[in-house]
């Protein structure tokens, strides 16, 4: 079989059972654009004061197209540059969060001492919006690592708490079964607890990724030196009255968030398929 037929067969396998979901998803997007168009047209026809804030879908689409080579108010940068810089910050911050939150979550879920020591800190820092750290982190870690640190804070807690919850929810009969088969503490941890926690970890990862994207926009608000990001340009084009470009950038953030969530979802399905759990 040739490579292309193989690919199309694979695509078919993924898409066909989901055609309903896909059609309805596309339909909902089309409806949204139509309503948006209607609102924008109405405001224009009635010469409303709000007209500039709601550019037509068409002008936003044009802005998105043009932004690949040119951004008003930001010389020497294109949408690709902004995407690269924001995406790398999000990925970096997210992975540092994952690497720390996963083992810490396992530890806090598995050990009373770690739980009692960690919980007050978690409960104290978790409700503080990561954005509260923006001024300090930007000064301390500068334009690239500052936003990374803020993304890290945003993604860290959802992963930590979900993993911790997962450890506490491990099926006790499985632990009993392992013990009667001669498993010691370390065996139980590696062979029973960790595999049981993966679905919870994936929930934490998906929530954490969402929060990471929310954080990056705000974290980049003030940062130009060291690489402007999407968040910075939302702010710049918004205050400069370039609303079409502002919305185009927002759409870009949405698309990137969907893509990263999609990658996480694929990894999750891979795991379930490999492990035979679903």
């Amino acid at each position: 079989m040739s490579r292309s037929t193989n690919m199309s067969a694979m695509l078919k396998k993924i898409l066909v059972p989901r055609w309903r979901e896909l059609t309805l998803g596309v339909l909902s997007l089309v409806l949204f654009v139509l309503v948006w168009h209607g609102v924008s047209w109405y405001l224009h026809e009635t010469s409303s004061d709000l007209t500039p804030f709601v550019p037509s879908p068409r002008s936003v689409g044009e802005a998105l197209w043009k932004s690949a080579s040119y951004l008003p108010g930001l010389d020497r940068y294109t949408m690709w540059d902004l995407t690269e810089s924001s995406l790398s910050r999000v990925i970096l911050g997210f992975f540092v969060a994952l690497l720390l939150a996963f083992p810490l979550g396992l530890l806090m879920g598995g050990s009373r001492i770690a739980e009692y020591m960690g919980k007050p800190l978690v409960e104290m820092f978790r409700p503080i919006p990561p954005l509260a750290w923006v001024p300090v982190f930007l000064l301390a870690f500068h334009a690239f690592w500052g936003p990374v640190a803020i993304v890290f804070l945003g993604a860290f807690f959802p992963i930590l708490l979900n993993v911790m919850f997962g450890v506490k929810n491990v099926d006790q009969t499985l632990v009993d079964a392992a013990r009667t088969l001669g498993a010691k503490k370390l065996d139980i941890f590696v062979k029973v607890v960790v595999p049981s926690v993966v679905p919870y970890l994936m929930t934490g990862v998906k929530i954490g990724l969402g929060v990471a994207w929310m954080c990056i926009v705000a974290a980049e608000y003030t940062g130009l030196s060291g690489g402007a990001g999407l968040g910075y340009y939302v702010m710049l084009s918004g205050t400069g009255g370039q609303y079409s470009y502002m919305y185009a950038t927002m759409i870009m953030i949405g698309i990137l968030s969907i893509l990263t969530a999609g990658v996480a979802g694929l990894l999750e399905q891979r795991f379930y398929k490999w492990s035979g759990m679903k």
Partner: protein
Amino acid sequence: MVGDEVSIQMRNLSKSFVKGKRSVIALQGFDIDIMDGEIMCLLGPSGCGKTTVLRIVAGLETPTDGKLLLRGKPITGPGPDRGMVFQEFALFPWRTVRRNIEFGPEVKGDSSEQREQISSRYVELVGLKGFEDAHPKELSGGMKQRVGIARALANDPSVLLMDEPFGSLDAQTRNLMQKELLRIWAATKKTVLFVTHSVDEAVFLADRIVVMTARPGKVREMIEVDLPRPRDRTSKEFISVRGRVLTELDEEFEKARAKELSPD
């Protein structure tokens, strides 16, 4: 098939635990000797501590008082010399049939060749050939419990502890699995301690049946089932033993119910 040696010796075994503000006595002065190679069934009203006895022998719970010996040595915790089969199967969902069976040998540190040899032997013994690479969710209840039995046997324990292992199976599968258990028992010569709700199951399987009292659980009656195997459920002798066990049990059910209704 029953040997002359005592496998498990329980003397004055007691277990109480704290439930809210009250202390509940689950087991009091429980005394039995289980012989090597014997199938012993524990029967009793729910909450009488049948499962507690099993979990204590498994080493998953520690008795509050009393003596518990396996072949003359005290039991201090779980160990591969006692295999346990659970009502809800308790298979590792992310492991295939083969890898579930290999769990015990794996934590013992057997080489992959040894593990493969062991799992192949028990896959064959329990009749799961061709399903080695299936995951538990792909199996029926009866097949899942075959995996559960094979997994417990893979450590070559001297005792098999079974906690209502066929309780969640339909009637046909249940009868089939009882026959299968007897076949496996005859082939492996294990001592079996079997907890059940079903009088029929107990009479079909057991060399001896222990009827337990309502909480706190004690031995009410030890009934020897002196019928040759395979047993015929419709035979006069079978029905007569069944009747005797039922009478004993009914009285305890009544007592348990009366206790439940009376305020304490």
